[in-house]
């Protein structure tokens, strides 16, 4: 076995791209002198690793950053009297990129310069995004945490006295928590079966219209959330058909938003089920519906749960569709089928621009509860959806039992 210590391997694998290679190494050796074909190590240039970054590269980076900083400082504060930290930073970064690219092109080579400037751009862009996302979540958590009280989870907003110094301990959002869970729960109860059946239609039945349906589902995924709410309002609430302003109206609006999302994710998960399993089941004589029910869906179970959890996580934070359906409420309403109902995102929205600091604190605390629920659902979805290796065993048992059933049926027929 060749190890990495073998000088020949080292020399061949780690030669720098574009480096001058000894001409003898490039001549095609005849079969006769094959054993001598690999030239001795001395003939090769010093092996370097293409990704090696030496102190000189670091110095280039730092030097470019420093010189750009100085230049921008001079232009900014001494020559043109510009101002503002943000603008300074933007100018500094732009000039830094230019200097860095120019110097690297001069010192190393133009192709490497492009590569390095690109790396700096990509890494800083990504760090900016990741940093901002962590910043948002962290900010909401820290801001909200200090306003969380036990009464938050035990009371509603019925007894709100702004003048009371102890007011934060007198109000809570229990009504909104219950409302949100009822609305999203009902929405998921309707959306999940419909979405799974639609996904089965798209991926298993593959009917005549599946292309059209897929396009429509995709387009529906982009429907603005407010439109879903306004539609439910125009369909049910305005003409007073069946339901009025209530939790169930909110559920229906959330259903419209969850449906395309869960359908698309489910379809993607179903696509990952190996077709060999389907064929095995069909070959054993199982009807199509039985194949889907006992083989395809169970195989995709963890993926399905992930799809549902993510759908719920997104639905619970939707605010816009609730404006026209649940309408929000200050007091407890446990019945989702009658009368306006509170919801977590609505509490945040309605209290954001209030003059009273107490209401703003309530909004912060509610935002904290909301993001915690989203985080828990999200992490749960990730954990459930993590690829595992032991999924085959139970499936094989299922196929075996199908085979046994088939055998038994045949014996019965005989």
């Amino acid at each position, binding site marked *: 076995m060749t190890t990495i210590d073998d000088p020949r391997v080292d020399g061949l694998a780690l030669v720098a791209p*574009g480096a001058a290679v000894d001409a003898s190494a490039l001549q095609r050796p005849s079969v006769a002198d094959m054993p001598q074909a690999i030239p001795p190590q001395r003939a090769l240039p010093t092996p370097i690793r293409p990704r090696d970054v030496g102190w000189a590269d670091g110095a280039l980076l730092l030097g470019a950053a420093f010189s750009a900083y100085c230049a921008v400082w001079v232009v900014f504060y001494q020559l043109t009297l*510009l101002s503002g930290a*943000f603008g300074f930073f*933007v100018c500094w970064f732009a000039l830094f990129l230019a200097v860095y690219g120019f110097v690297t092109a001069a010192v190393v080579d133009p*192709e*490497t310069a*492009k*590569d390095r400037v690109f*790396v700096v751009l*990509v*890494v*800083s*862009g*990504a760090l900016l*995004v*990741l940093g901002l*996302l*962590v910043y*948002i979540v962290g900010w*909401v958590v820290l801001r909200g945490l200090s306003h969380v009280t036990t009464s938050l989870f035990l009371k509603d907003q019925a007894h709100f006295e702004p003048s009371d110094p102890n007011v934060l301990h007198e109000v809570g959002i229990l009504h909104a928590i219950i409302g949100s869970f009822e609305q999203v729960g009902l929405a998921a109860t309707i959306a999940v079966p*419909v979405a799974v059946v*639609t996904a*089965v239609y798209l991926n298993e*039945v593959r009917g005549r*219209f*599946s292309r*059209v*349906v897929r396009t*429509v*589902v*995709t*387009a*529906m*995924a*982009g*429907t*603005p959330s*407010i*439109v*879903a709410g306004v*539609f439910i309002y*125009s369909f049910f609430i305005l003409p007073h058909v069946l339901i009025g302003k209530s939790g169930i109206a909110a559920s229906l609006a959330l259903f419209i938003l969850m*449906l395309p999302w869960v359908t698309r994710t489910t379809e993607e998960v179903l696509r990952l089920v190996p077709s060999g399993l389907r064929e095995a089941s069909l070959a054993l004589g199982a*009807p*199509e*519906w039985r194949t*889907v029910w006992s083989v395809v869906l169970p195989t995709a179970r963890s993926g399905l749960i992930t799809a549902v959890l993510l759908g719920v*996580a*997104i639905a*619970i*934070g939707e*605010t816009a569709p609730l404006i*026209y359906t649940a309408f929000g409420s200050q007091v407890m309403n446990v019945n989702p089928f009658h009368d306006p109902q509170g919801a977590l*995102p609505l509490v945040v*929205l309605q209290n*954001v621009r209030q003059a009273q600091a107490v209401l703003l604190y309530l909004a912060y605390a509610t935002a904290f509860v*909301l993001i915690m629920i*989203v985080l828990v659902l*999200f992490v749960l979805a*990730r954990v459930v959806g993590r690829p595992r290796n032991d999924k085959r065993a139970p499936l094989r048992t299922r196929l075996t039992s199908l085979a046994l059933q088939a055998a038994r049926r045949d014996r019965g027929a005989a």
Partner: protein
Amino acid sequence: MSVTAEAVRDVPQPGGPRPISIRTDRSVQDQVYRVITSATGLGTLVLLFLIGLFLLLRGLPALRIEGFRFVTTSGFETIGKNLHFGVAASLFGTFVVATVALVVAVPVALATAIFLNEYAPERSRRFLTAVVDLGAAIPSVIYGLWGIFEFQPNLVGFCTWLSRHLAWIPFFEVTTPKVTASLFVAGMVVGLMIVPIIASVTREVFSLTPQGEREAALALGSSRFGMIRTVVIPFGRGGMIGAIMLGLGRALGETIAVVIILAESFVISPHILQTGGSTVAAFIAIHAESGGPTGTAALMLAGFTLFLFTMAVNLAASAIVSRSRSGAGVEL
């Protein structure tokens, strides 16, 4: 007529095996299964149709009053004698917010997608991808809350800087005393909201780039940048455009963050840094139940307008994606 040996072999010989029909008649159970799934699948078509139909139906009274002026004037006077309402300024604001959002979001989203696929350390890649995906699940009300209390105070300096030094560009000119609650700030926050959406879809498309072609580019002596430019980006171009259109659709329809940040005013002005503006989605949300029957009809009509716009963008997006070459299995 000569008969070739091959043809003779294919002719069924008497006594030999005869070809049988392999067409299967589906059992009743399977027929029922097919009908049920097809009906559900087609149900989504019906649902989409109903959404458009009902918004238009309920908006008709408003359309009768204002007619085509609904999209050329702006205001919301729906009670009393002087009825006057329209979404011209809101349409303009929607367009501005979406443009700002895309200008901000697209470069950083693409950088994030490329970073996650090509540069992120192997060990932390899964985690970093999860962080970006989480961004798509953060409720918009939280983006709004953060935007108005944390982001805007920090952005004011930059806005002032832009208006002071780049005022010769008409967009950055400011005629009001303040630069808060502007279309620009709303667009920045909406841009941040659509970054995770664009980034995660693009990342998925990029990750489907065939390994062989990547390695071929590197083996030809290309740098990593060269490889990304000549292999990864052309391969994923369709998916990338689709992702951007998806983000655009979101930006057009974003409601809550805009409601929280933007101070409503019906002015059409190219000065995007100054206070005030309106978007269609925010218009619908702000005036909910406040304008009597005519107002409701006007809002339904506004909803229909928004629905048409986003539907057009989304259908165009799916068309572009399905026509492009990028990863056969990838669809948005």
